[in-house]
């Protein structure tokens, strides 16, 4: 089964360790992540000003590319891209006046009115495959892995685009359970990592990371799992600084959810690009006996 897929800029360079294990895992499950032709940058952040329609053009163009392919769903992996595309889509669906202005401006494109649903890969795993079916495909259960699911902001806020409960999200917890891991809920799992503040105030980033790691550590987590390349960058950078300036701050490995998915499906460490992770996650995984590769998985999709 083929799914229209929007990668976004960061996944092609800095976050290949998010994308490549996702593509390989979905293939093993019988789904082809079919990259959208002629995709462009989504703009990274959703424009919050009423009169700023020009910044809606970039995400809407990507949605139009999916519509042209005859697709009614566009799968994203990067949490930032997901947020921007889903919010732009909502605007095109619900605001007739702005929709008309944007469609008239892009008169070389077909008219668009929010027909394509922007979804995150986690939603595909939960809603189209299901946790039970996924757990049956697991070849290498992530037993003994106490992982803290970190959501950050953009999968859950604002409320109208959230993939799960804003106050008590469960999707990453259920995902980890399906892979055989032991999820560790912690209260700061939706606290902001500092986001684009790293551009203007890089020195402040460690202090955004501190309460997040403290909370995860004090609840017994050994590893952090996340979905967003900017969270990954900020938390990795912040943690490194905290360790350097504060003796006793223990390093917690950080993984993309797709890396754990690939490992659990038995695809081995090659597709995971751990060399792009912060710190040295491979030695941690080796200790846990999680680096083996096993025979191929029987696909789910047709």
């Amino acid at each position: 089964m083929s799914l229209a897929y929007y990668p976004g800029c960061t996944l092609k360079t800095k976050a290949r360790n998010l994308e490549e294990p996702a593509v390989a895992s979905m293939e093993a499950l019988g789904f082809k992540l079919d990259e959208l032709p002629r995709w462009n940058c989504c703009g990274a952040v959703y424009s919050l000003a009423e009169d700023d329609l020009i910044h809606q053009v970039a995400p809407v163009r990507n949605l139009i590319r999916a519509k042209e392919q005859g697709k009614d769903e566009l799968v994203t992996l990067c949490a930032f891209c997901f947020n921007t595309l889903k919010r732009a889509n909502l605007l095109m669906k619900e605001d007739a006046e702005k929709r008309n202005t944007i469609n008239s401006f892009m008169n070389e494109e077909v008219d668009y009115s929010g027909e394509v649903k922007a979804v995150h890969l986690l939603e595909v795993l939960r809603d189209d495959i299901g946790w039970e079916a996924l757990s049956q495909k697991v070849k290498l259960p992530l037993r003994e892995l106490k992982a803290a699911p970190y959501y950050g902001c953009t999968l859950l806020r604002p409320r109208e685009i959230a993939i799960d409960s804003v106050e008590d999200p469960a999707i990453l917890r259920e995902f980890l359970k399906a892979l055989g891991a032991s999820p560790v809920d912690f209260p700061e799992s939706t606290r902001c990592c500092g986001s684009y503040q790293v551009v203007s105030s890089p020195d402040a980033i460690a202090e955004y990371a501190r309460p997040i790691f403290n909370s995860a550590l004090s609840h017994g987590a050994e590893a952090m799992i996340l979905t967003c390349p900017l969270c990954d960058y900020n938390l990795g950078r912040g943690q490194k600084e905290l360790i350097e300036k504060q003796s006793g701050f223990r390093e917690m490995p950080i993984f993309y959810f797709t890396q754990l998915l690939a490992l659990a499906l038995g695809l081995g460490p090659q597709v995971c690009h751990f060399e792009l992770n912060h710190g040295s996650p491979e030695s941690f995984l080796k200790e846990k006996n999680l680096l083996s590769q096993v025979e191929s998985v029987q696909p789910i999709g047709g």
Partner: protein
Amino acid sequence: MFVTVSSKRLRREFVKKVKELSGQNLQLCYQCGMCTGNCPAAANMDVSPRRIIELARLGLEEDIANSKTVWICASCLACTVNCPRGFDLSRVMEAIRLLTLRKNIDHVRPEDIPPQERCELPQIAMVSGLRKFTG
């Protein structure tokens, strides 16, 4: 702090512009402080998120301009989802930033970002940072 509130101030172009750009009804806010309580950056701000709303609706443009608050906001929307009045403060923060940026006053100059940082930062950081901090 004492402020003089006058009807002239309340009719200021600034108040009108903030309302227009944010699409928010500034009178909705009843100053409960849920926004400040939920803001992960409030401790670094010289004016709290709650007070930004109050200053904006009283037309106290200079107090807002002298504060760092809107440049510390990371648009994480913790205020937005926790507001009991359905007020979207993230849009007010954006409107206030834009009123400065649209005068060609940038908060960050791309050329001041060290080359090593430019290489290291993920693209979504650069694109979103320059979207929020330059006009």
